């Protein structure tokens, strides 16, 4: 293995802690947003519009005089709540579909997986947009659209794990012992699937945060007056010439959050294998994570 790759790996390992820190800060901000915002994120004050960094407004104000720091904190809440809702919904539905499809097999599996593959061949964001076009604008419509667009990947991964596990000797020997179908699925197949799914979900959380920001940027996701990074970004675009601060801050917040989730996912992937993994396996895992990531990051 080339030396630069090792260096990159150790670099990634060192980045593990910052990643956890970023995600933790995000979570704290999101959980206690109401108590942490110095101003109301929606309070307008046209007298102090477009101010730069100052003691009163640490990160300045936007064109309506709203406090940028407060809006960033409120935005982290909006983003993480939406991400959590979509990930949980898509995961639950996807895992159930994937498990049933993989365990039952036959024509059901064939039909389910063909449609899943078809949906996966179209970028998820386009699927989500089409769904919004059907459902109309609004917070819950966006959540529903993203959930539908995100179900196939969870179903696919779960089904893959289930199909790989169901014929493994440890499942077969339980079957021979007389374990019921419910026991096999609930205690052995689902946990195995969930372990892989959780690793994927943590990378996916970053991708979803990006997707939500992109939808809001297009004016099709989170609607004002709710604060969201993508929405802050598009609000500030007309003032790019003289106040780039207003686009750099939400952009950085988003980039850091996504990067945090990505690294968390990679770390989880390596924790998933407690045994010493060879360099080759690790490289393969990273490549897979990278590929998953790349296919979803193209927003």
């Amino acid at each position, binding site marked *: *293995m*080339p*030396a*630069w*790759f090792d260096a*990159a790996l150790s*670099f990634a390992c060192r980045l593990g802690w910052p990643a956890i820190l970023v995600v933790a800060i995000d979570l704290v901000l999101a959980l206690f947003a109401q108590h942490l915002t110095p101003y109301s994120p929606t309070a307008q004050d046209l007298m102090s519009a477009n101010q730069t960094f100052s003691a009163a407004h640490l990160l300045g104000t936007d064109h309506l005089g709203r406090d940028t720091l407060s809006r960033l904190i409120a935005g982290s809440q909006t983003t993480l709540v939406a991400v959590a809702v979509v990930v949980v919904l898509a995961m639950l539905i996807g895992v159930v579909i994937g498990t049933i499809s993989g365990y039952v097999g036959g024509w059901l599996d064939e039909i389910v997986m063909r449609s899943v593959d*078809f949906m996966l*061949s*179209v*970028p998820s*964001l*386009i699927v989500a*947009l*089409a769904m*919004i*076009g*059907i*459902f*109309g*604008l609004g917070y819950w419509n966006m959540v529903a659209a993203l959930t539908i667009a995100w179900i196939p990947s969870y179903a696919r991964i779960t089904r893959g794990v289930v199909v790989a596990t169901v014929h493994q000797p440890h499942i077969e020997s339980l079957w021979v012992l007389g374990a019921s179908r419910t026991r096999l699925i609930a205690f052995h197949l689902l946990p195995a699937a969930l372990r892989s799914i959780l690793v994927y979900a943590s990378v996916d959380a*970053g991708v979803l945060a*990006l997707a939500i*920001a*992109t939808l809001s*940027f*297009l*004016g*099709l996701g989170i609607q004002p007056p709710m604060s969201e990074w*993508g929405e802050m*970004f598009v609000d500030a*675009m007309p003032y*790019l*010439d003289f106040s*780039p601060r207003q*686009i*750099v801050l939400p*952009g950085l917040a*988003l*980039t*850091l959050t*996504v*990067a945090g989730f*990505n690294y968390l996912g990679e770390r989880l992937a390596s924790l998933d294998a407690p045994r010493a993994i060879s360099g080759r396996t690790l490289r393969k895992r990273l*490549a897979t994570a*990278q590929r998953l*990531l*790349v*296919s979803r*990051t*193209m*927003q």
Partner: protein
Amino acid sequence: MAQVALRRLLSALILVAVASVACFSIVAVFPGNVARVIAEMRSSTVSDEIVKQIEVQYGLKDPVPLRYLRWAGRAVRGDLGESLRTGQPVAKDLVRRAPLTVILILGGGAFTLVMGMGLAFLGALWSDSVIDRIIHVLSLIGASAPKFFIAALLVYLFGVVFRILPTYGFAGPASWILPCISIGIIPGSILSRVARVALAEEMSRQYVVTAISKGLPRRRILVHDALPNALPVTINAFAMHFAFMVQAALVIEPIFAWQGIAAYFVEAVRFRDYQVLQSCLLVFCVFFILVNLSVDLISMALDPKQSRQRLA
């Protein structure tokens, strides 16, 4: 070989048919009364009479398979219906807007390819140099940063700070540069990493060790042996990024105020203009299928082993 290619072509055609069904079914699953949505779009006062009239006019009461056949039949002849919002024929709008999106995607693809392959090759030429570091950092940023953020930074840098490139509108090649870089820079940085890893893998193989110990110069091995062998992986990665550029165009076109197909799609989503929505989706699906088809054919041509295996 020809037979395999033909079979691949046939399956692509079948996929197009499947895609058309999927795009059409968007209307079929449209919640609520489609006729009422159309009526509301035309005027603020909606009576049941007008709704009924629209139902008849659009044939909305006919069974779904019949409606699909009618729609598909027209689509094959180049008639994609009229936009519900503007009343303009969708096909005409698409043709008018196509050049912008095509230029954006082709230009972005070219930039991706040049940047990705260039960096990877330079990195392989002088391994462990500063270029490898750049590739690594770029791919880290590329995997996490939103496209619209990168695009806005580029606009600020070239349009506001240096004032050397137009940042707005579609007027001549100079105005194409920033959008194409904006759309191509993230996939380019990720591709550079993929290609670099593929090259590094090739260069660590036994045949390279043998060739070096025979006294062949590293550069020659890189160009003549490692590069062709690393190509299929790279091309597959590139194709994925290329196909996903449609998705990136959704944000890049609005930033530069380009009236392309992606912007048309976003508009259709906003106004729930399902005629435009399904037509755009169909165009996107055909594009994805075409990209996949050409990748398969290209990698088949590049890799004789693969085509032989498929024949067997």
